[in-house]
């Protein structure tokens, strides 16, 4: 049982649930109190100690039956009630009919469960070691059955019963035997399925360990060169990064708290001491920034925009207010979409809101749109962030509009996935935008992006 719980925890981790050592220790303690006899209580003890996120409950519910499923019943020895003489009979009959089903008959007629070694061997022969989706458990169990020549079993058993009848065994005894062998068949089938399910889960656990090592390397990889699986690994990584960023930002905020003396507030606050300034009130030096984000969602920018949104979403509490706009051939206000949906859905909505058109990008027009409709939301505490490659399809870059926006804002920051030497080549207007920005960051990979956001929030 202990081993199984340990493996269950490893399985949870593999599925992306973070379980710390302290938490698994809590789980043990909880089980000691609750016992393992009542399944529902046992499950709740594990769940409340191991799962700390409502989203992970689903994963838990999915994995739990795999490890603590209604465990397949053990095999019984059907010959237990036979007399020595009858056992002898059985042995002879079985030897005669067995053929290449010897192993299977051995399990069923003697109630001997397959040993670990035999299971391993079957796993190897059926390719179970390469399976990595728990849905396949049933299929692999059937393959293992086939390996044991299960499909010929009914026929062989029929022969066996016939033989026994010929040898003069009591028909009632035979019926009882049939019943028990039938039970054994079901039990064996259950055991094989369980073995397959656990093995597959172990495989997934194993694979995940490799994946985590990769994550660090992937952070250095250009975002546009990532495969879908690699994107997945990095998506996991984003939350971790965001947590680190958050504590960094929060600390910075705390340390810089002491600003100049706030006279007005001090006088007001010390009225109760008769105006004697006992408690000094300081101005908070740094306020949480307000952000206006204008993102390019054209094909070439998808990955950068997605990770940027993810990081920003995780850091919402460090930002006072974010207005988000997506642009492609026109501008869309996506603030509400970002606010009212969880991140997965929000990103999907934002990225699909503006359908693909060949050579559609028109930043200039979008900036003018922004200037016309939303300029009011920019004040001197707002940081404007443009995420884009500055490739404008030779449309009017609307530089003076951009300058107006830039002047109004506290800061204008541009995140561009292209190297500076590419700026101004082809249809890129980046070289013209660049002098109008307060800061420009080159974000090639997730690492760059994290650093850029860190700088952004520091300002």
């Amino acid at each position: 049982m202990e081993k199984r719980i340990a493996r269950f925890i490893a399985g949870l981790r593999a599925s992306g649930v973070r379980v710390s050592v302290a938490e698994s220790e809590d789980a043990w303690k909880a089980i000691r109190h609750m016992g393992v006899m009542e399944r529902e209580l046992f499950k709740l003890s594990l769940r409340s100690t191991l799962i700390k996120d409502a989203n992970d409950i689903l994963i838990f519910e999915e994995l739990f039956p795999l490890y603590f499923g209604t465990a397949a019943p053990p095999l019984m020895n059907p010959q237990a009630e036979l007399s020595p003489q009858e056992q002898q009979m059985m042995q002879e009959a079985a030897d005669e009919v067995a053929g290449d089903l010897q192993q299977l008959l051995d399990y069923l007629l003697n109630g001997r469960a397959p040993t670990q070694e035999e299971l391993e061997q079957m796993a190897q022969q059926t390719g179970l070691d390469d399976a990595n989706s728990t849905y396949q458990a049933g299929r692999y169990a059937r393959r293992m059955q086939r390996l044991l020549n299960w499909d010929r079993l009914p026929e062989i058993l029929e022969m066996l019963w016939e033989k026994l009848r010929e040898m003069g065994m009591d028909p009632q005894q035979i019926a009882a035997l049939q019943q028990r062998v039938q039970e054994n068949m079901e039990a064996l089938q259950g055991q094989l399925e369980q073995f397959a399910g656990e093995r597959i889960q172990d495989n997934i656990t194993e694979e995940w360990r490799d994946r985590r090592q990769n994550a660090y390397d992937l952070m250095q990889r250009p975002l546009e060169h990532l495969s879908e699986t690699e994107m997945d690994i990095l998506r996991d990584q984003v939350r971790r990064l965001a947590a680190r960023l958050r504590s960094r930002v929060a600390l910075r905020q705390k340390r810089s708290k002491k600003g100049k003396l706030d006279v007005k507030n001090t006088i007001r606050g010390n009225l109760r001491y008769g105006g004697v300034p006992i408690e000094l009130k300081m101005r908070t030096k740094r306020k949480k920034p307000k952000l206006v984000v204008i993102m390019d969602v054209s094909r070439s920018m998808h990955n950068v925009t997605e990770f940027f949104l993810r990081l920003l979403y995780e850091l919402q509490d460090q930002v006072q207010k974010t207005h988000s706009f997506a642009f492609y051939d026109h501008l869309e206000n996506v603030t509400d979409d970002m606010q009212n949906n969880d991140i997965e859905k929000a990103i999907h909505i934002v990225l699909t809101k503006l359908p693909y058109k060949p050579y559609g990008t028109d930043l200039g027009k979008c900036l003018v749109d922004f200037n016309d409709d939303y300029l009011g939301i920019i004040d001197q505490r707002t940081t404007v962030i443009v995420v884009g490659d500055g490739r404008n399809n030779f449309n009017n870059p609307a530089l003076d509009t951009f300058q107006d926006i830039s002047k109004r804002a506290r800061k204008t920051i541009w995140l561009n996935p292209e190297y500076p030497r590419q700026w101004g080549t082809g249809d890129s207007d980046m070289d013209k935008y660049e002098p109008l920005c307060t800061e420009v960051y080159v974000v090639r990979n997730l690492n760059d992006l994290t650093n850029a956001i860190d700088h952004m929030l520091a300002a």
Partner: protein
Amino acid sequence: MELQYDSVESVKTALGEQQYIASDEIATVLYLAEKLGKPLLLEGPAGVGKTELSKAWAKATGKPLVRLQCYEGLDESKALYEWEYAKQMLYTQLLRDKLAEVLSDADSLATAADQLANEEDIFFSERFLLERPLLQAINHDEPTVLLIDEIDRADAEFEAFLLEVLSDFQVSIPEIGTITAKQRPVVFLTSNNTRELSEALKRRCLFIFIDYPNVSEELDIVRIKVPELSEQMAKQAVEAVQTLRRMDLKKHPSVSETLDWAKALVTLNAESLDRETVENTLTVLLKYEQDISKARRILRGRDGGQGGRDLSEGGGSSYRGGDW
């Protein structure tokens, strides 16, 4: 206390006596939290009874409830302790003569200062300490139930500070020293999940996600809390609320709003849930104009036949009015 609640069932009954209907899940986790001495993190949509649970538990165990409401900008001086400056000032003023007497035999400024330093403890004693909820819970002679409400509203820094308190149940006050809890409080934290809590905090807690109750659970709650409402009406009301929750609304009606609605229906002496009654009282359940108009639209669409009849009845009465 320990003897009293030695099984999940007893926890459930105890909560039931406080008119709190606990699911098996809640009772089990609460029992575990009590046994392991771990804080309990309650998460779920607003108004499903997270705060209510801790209140009920405090009542059931007879422990005093200490509540700390979190908000943005909450800091240690609001949560833990503060020196009571005004009182210190007042005492210094009043004790001036006595101080002069004590210091009168000092022949130099240095000795006077030394003597004063000896008396310093008086001014930084627990007498002048203004206890805030956390210190109250720790310092209490009996075990307490500490409710840290809406922890997700507090800043990340406060969360870090809270970790220290929750892991050792001791706080250090520079002038006095370390105060360790005489009795470990039972801690409840609630969160509406407006932001992700830190891993470290989650690690220290047991977790339970409380969702909206299903029809029969909610019906039980309504029956217990608003017994005046007829069985038939309660059933209809709960079903209506559950339907609203399945709709795509800005804010779904919570359990507490169901109860408010039930009470409103009692007050209005409504005999059945006809369209008029529902439309008039919908504002109790839904708090956004868009939600209300959406719900109205659907309500009209759903029982169109009945709506038509209502309308014709209305027309008839006004016509009669004109005739008269």
